């Protein structure tokens, strides 16, 4: 099967950095349909740079981002429209990613309008369905973000991301800001969206336990390079790199009872 998204030997250097100082270097991996993928790394590993490249917000200094096997060309409007519809995103902080002055229905419906997915009643129905699939009541649409808790706001952000029926959900530390009960609920929701909406999650996280709970594949980044990638169980169960072992050993574990 053609991967939905692929990075082919991608490098990126920010302007003004010294020659050879790359934020990410020679990175290649693919997002296959149905294979939730975890991108793991600590601060400075290049996670955020990769996210921007994968979202088409920046062009790689060298290498290519492939969308459905075709190089992503930000000048090609029809490709970009189909790309935006197919790849949506959820950010870490559910407080700053929702406009406090808009009602939830309008926030969630934004991609429907801007991507011209539907209009009028059909658009309202898409919004209602998205809210329902993230477990929010239908009357949420007429309320404002501040009326919701952190976990509910993250559900609103997820509803906005899935409303245009994307194939990939790029979630950047989606549960890091959430308390443990909400965190476990949001992970369960993301896991369930895969089969129910044909959605593949690419989750960026520094937390291996969250990746282990949601992703079939794991990519480990350190200092802008991939140190290890493979199925989550092989990366976690039989890590081949010292750095991966260090990350694993550092995860706080619950005592066995």
């Amino acid at each position: 099967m053609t991967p939905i998204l692929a990075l082919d030997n991608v490098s990126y250097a920010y302007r003004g950095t010294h020659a050879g100082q790359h934020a990410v270097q020679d990175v290649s991996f693919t997002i296959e349909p149905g294979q939730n993928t975890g991108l793991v790394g600590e601060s400075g590993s290049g996670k955020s740079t990769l996210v921007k490249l994968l979202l088409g917000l920046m062009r790689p200094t060298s290498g290519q981002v492939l969308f459905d096997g075709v190089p992503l060309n930000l000048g090609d409007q029809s490709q970009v429209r189909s790309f935006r519809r197919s790849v949506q995103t959820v950010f870490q902080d559910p407080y700053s990613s929702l406009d406090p002055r808009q009602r939830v229905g309008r926030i969630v419906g934004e991609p429907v309008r801007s991507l011209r997915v539907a209009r009028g009643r059909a658009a309202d129905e898409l919004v209602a369905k998205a809210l329902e699939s993230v477990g929010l009541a239908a009357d949420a649409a007429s309320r404002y973000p501040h009326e919701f808790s952190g976990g509910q706001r993250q559900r609103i952000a997820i509803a906005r991301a899935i409303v245009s029926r994307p194939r990939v959900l790029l979630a950047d530390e989606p549960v890091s800001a959430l308390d443990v009960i909400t965190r476990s609920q949001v992970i369960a929701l993301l896991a369930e969206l895969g089969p129910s909406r044909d959605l593949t999650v690419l989750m960026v996280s520094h937390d291996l336990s969250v990746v282990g709970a949601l992703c079939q594949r794991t990519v480990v980044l350190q200092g802008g390079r991939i140190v290890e990638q493979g199925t989550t169980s092989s990366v976690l169960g039989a890590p081949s790199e010292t750095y991966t072992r260090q990350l694993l050993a550092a995860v706080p574990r619950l005592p066995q009872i």
Partner: protein
Amino acid sequence: MNLLEVASLSVTSSDGVARVRDVSFTVAPGERLGLIGESGSGKSLTAFAVIGLLPAGLKATGSVMLDDTQVVGAPEKNLVPLRGRVCSFIFQEPLTALDPLMKLGHQLAEPIARHQGLRGSALKRAVLDALDEVHLPEPERIADSRSYEISGGQRQRVAIAMALACRPRLLIADEPTTALDVTVQSGVLALLDHLVADRDMAMIFVSHDLAVVSRMTDHALVMRSGEAVERGSIGELLASPRHPYTAEFAASARRIETAFASAIARGRPE
């Protein structure tokens, strides 16, 4: 005798909302207690109230006896001798605890000079020793740096050195590793564990993360919406929680842990 006795502590905001309600617990010398709860549970406010550091607009009632001194309603001059010597605080974000305009060595020298009465080269020596104790490499360079010139993990180590400078008998750590990367977190937790054990200090460890708390203490008080829900050993809270909230909290933590453990088990070579 207990080092800390909190009895019917309530914290109320100026609009009359109770943020902490009727919380009671004790900490004996050398004892460690985890304060576990989600955001808004009142765990941090409880910790602040212990040392009389509540943000403006919040008022404590009830009783907090810290080393036989009443903290609730006490004038500032009664609290100053307690801070640093009896009880010290480590905050979540070390940047807020460190002055960006001051060299770290000078900041660390302040409590050491006050507590041990050292000056000149003896003081300088003590500052470098304190940095060395928290396992910072190149203490001279760190002492000569400002907070923004070192990494987050190093900052938290400097904050720990400052908190320990006056040899307190109780250390309150409020989510001290939440802002750190996992590998850095693991190093800072190991350091705290070892320093607290070494000096026979008591510790209150505040966190929302059950796994992190279990790394530092085997006893915890669970808080929710400003109330103490239950106190017990981590094993009891996980295995036989008495309160439905503790059960839900523990089950959620366990669910993530189980999925993680089974992913590891699946990939382990035969």
